[in-house]
């Protein structure tokens, strides 16, 4: 069930109504109800894939109990490994097998061995990477003792399948979300209204910003050979905002929906495109739940207690290389995240000299210096994201080189440009207000009337200027 579908707009209020009809003291009943609603939500795509979700849940649940039960460290480790292997095997089979089989075949063919590996025609289960990582994170946390084992199966199953963040995150941590299923959530006026406002903002980002950008970006990137450098440049500059609107839009709807029900999900985006002063900073602000997952479960274990700079750099690069694969079984994603990995290695290496340089010339707090860094960071991100969006590596190279070698006026779509410009202006006002902590805030105004008028106008703005065709969210494919 898509967030931007009529079905969800009916489903969500009904779920809220029934949820709050169950007395807050009947915690178990409420959790069972949310669990059923979450599976219903997920089964709307393809019912049979709920079995995968259930398998992942059962495996990690049992593994965690095993880890907790055994005293012997090697047995604990065996339980963790079993959980990792089984979950990653499912992920590999459904998401990566065909990709690897294709590439192995190609390598074998080029060396004269025409072996054909079996092909599985499986539809990629929606959100498999998200819930698998969330469940694996729990197993690892239990192993390291940073979270308590959850023995109540329905509560744990709800943690893995909680419908607001099930298919595209934020990838929640067990020590944040699990305890919330054990608290009584009373119907709280402020929470509900704040949640609704966050959801409406999410819909704005998805339907007005992302989907408007996608009309232009898709027409260029899906027909690369038919366009010139001007169109390449404009589409490349627009894509980060499409991606941001799409993914942050989903996260805001998820966070808002959870808030309405009384749950606090983690922040997933903190204004990454206008205010990041370095690529490092960008990844601290962008897709925070995934970045922190990779940092905590891949990068830090890899670095360990090493103080060697070369090993830190290698670990960063490997982490981002894996992150590329997490995003999808395609070389474009791997290349995109390898570029990010490369940027971060450079960032790490230049960190000390830059700090010295900034101190010497007193640049740290100079606004123009910050903006110079922000613009440079944005352009670096744009280059990496061209690979992320392009349909092939060759297309990405054509787009980047075409910007310089095939100059020309961009394909005009004036009406769409105006709509995107208006949406970007609204986004900028909101993000500048948050970043610079301006005193006025329409959405969070102390005035009841202002807050409500804001909601009404935003809803009407979305109805008038949104792309309401029910497009998929980009991150669903991951």
């Amino acid at each position: 069930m898509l967030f931007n579908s009529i079905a969800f707009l009916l489903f969500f209020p009904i779920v809220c109504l029934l949820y709050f009809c169950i007395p807050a003291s009947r915690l178990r009943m409420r959790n069972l109800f949310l669990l059923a609603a979450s599976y219903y939500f997920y089964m709307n795509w393809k019912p049979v894939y709920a079995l995968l979700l259930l398998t992942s849940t059962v495996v990690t649940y049992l593994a965690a109990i095993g880890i907790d039960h055994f005293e012997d460290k090697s047995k604990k480790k065996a339980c963790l490994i079993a959980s990792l292997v089984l979950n990653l095997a499912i992920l590999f089979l459904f998401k990566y097998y065909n990709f690897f089989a294709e590439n192995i075949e190609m390598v074998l063919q080029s060396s004269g061995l025409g072996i054909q590996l079996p092909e599985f025609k499986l539809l990629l289960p929606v959100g498999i990477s998200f819930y698998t990582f969330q469940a694996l994170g729990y197993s690892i946390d239990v192993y390291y003792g940073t979270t308590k084992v959850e023995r109540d199966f329905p509560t744990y199953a709800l943690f893995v399948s909680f419908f607001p963040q099930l298919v595209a995150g934020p990838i929640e941590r067990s020590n944040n979300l699990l305890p919330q299923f054990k608290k009584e959530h009373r119907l709280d006026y402020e929470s509900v209204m704040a949640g609704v406002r966050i959801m409406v903002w999410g819909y704005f980002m998805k339907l007005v910003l992302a989907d408007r950008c996608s009309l232009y970006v898709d027409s260029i990137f899906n027909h690369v050979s038919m366009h010139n450098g001007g169109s390449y440049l404009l589409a490349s500059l627009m894509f980060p905002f499409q991606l941001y609107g799409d993914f942050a839009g989903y996260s805001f709807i998820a966070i808002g929906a959870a808030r309405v029900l009384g749950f606090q999900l983690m922040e997933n985006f903190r204004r990454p495109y206008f205010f990041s002063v370095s690529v490092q900073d960008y990844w601290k602000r962008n897709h925070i739940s995934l970045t922190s997952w990779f940092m905590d479960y891949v990068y830090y274990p890899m670095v360990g207690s090493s103080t060697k700079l070369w090993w830190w750099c290698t670990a960063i690069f490997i982490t981002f290389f894996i992150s590329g694969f997490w995003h999808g079984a395609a070389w474009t994603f791997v290349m995109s995240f390898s570029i990010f990995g490369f940027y971060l290695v450079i960032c790490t290496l230049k960190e000390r000299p830059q700090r010295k340089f900034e101190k010497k010339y007193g640049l740290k707090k100079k606004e123009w210096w910050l903006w110079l860094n922000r613009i440079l960071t944005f352009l670096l991100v744009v280059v990496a994201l061209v690979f992320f969006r392009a349909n092939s590596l060759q297309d990405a190279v054509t787009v980047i080189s075409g910007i310089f070698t095939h100059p020309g006026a961009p394909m005009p779509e004036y009406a769409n440009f105006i709509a995107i410009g208006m949406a970007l202006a609204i986004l900028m006002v909101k993000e500048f207000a948050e970043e610079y902590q301006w005193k006025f805030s329409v959405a969070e105004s102390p005035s009841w009337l202002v807050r409500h008028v804001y909601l009404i106008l935003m809803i009407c703005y979305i109805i008038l200027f949104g792309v309401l065709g029910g497009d998929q969210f980009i991150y669903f494919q991951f």
Partner: protein
Amino acid sequence: MKKLAISILFVLVGVFVVDRIGGMAMWWVNQHTHDVSGPKIKHLVFDADEDVIMMGTSRCNSHYVPSIISDSIGMSVYNGGVDASNNIFAHYIVLNHLLDRHNPKVICLEVQANDFARQHGTFNSISFFAPYFGLNEHADSVFRMAGNYWKYKASHLYRYNSKAVSNIAGLAINRHAGGDNGYIPNPQPAHHPQVLRHSKTYVNIDTTKICYIKRFVNLCRQHHVKLVFMISPWFEKVDNDHYNVLKLLAKQYDIPFLDYHTQGLFLDHPDYFRDITHLWDKGARAYSSIFASDLKHILEQLPKE
């Protein structure tokens, strides 16, 4: 709980009120915009009084020069081609609105494969006509089939969703200026198409579309409007059976059919094309002369009523 109920009620009522006021404002914008499609649809619905109406999509919009055709056949001509109204459902909506008020002598419908072949997003383009929702029951039936009926009923603002920005921009920028009775010339492109591709014949036929072509034809007959089908040039090759579905229908209903695509008109003139699908002004003028002459011949042969 009471506080929440008041808030929800306030927001719902507020959305309803703003939606209705916004709908009225957008109707005004729609009636005063100088954007490309808005004024044309308005003309077809409220103002058309020409003898000959050309109907179709952007290819019609930019291929038929009314002054050239009018000079040749001695009748007033209006080019009612609407950009992106890319199949028979959109044309059927326009026809119903048009015939509500005015019976032209001839309607020339620029047909294409989208009028009979299955396509992705069949009803995508009918939203352009949503501002006129509620004015004609038969036109509204297409919205019902597309699943938009209740959405348009519920929200007046939503009726303007697809064209809101261009309509508002059209208040300041006159993209309709320089037009010739609905004809909006395509500018000369930087590059003309080079590669001549071969397009396959469509085999997936949409029976609902066929049904609506028949409805279109019958409606014209009921109103004693002569109907002509034509296909203007494309820069691509097709097999002789490419339009057989439409040709059989035309034969069945005795409708003249001018097919310049299959016969490969202007394939030796890539300089007439803006892209594979569209002629630019120079090509449109050359083509309009040929078409006008053929149309004149057809009209002379038709029995006088």
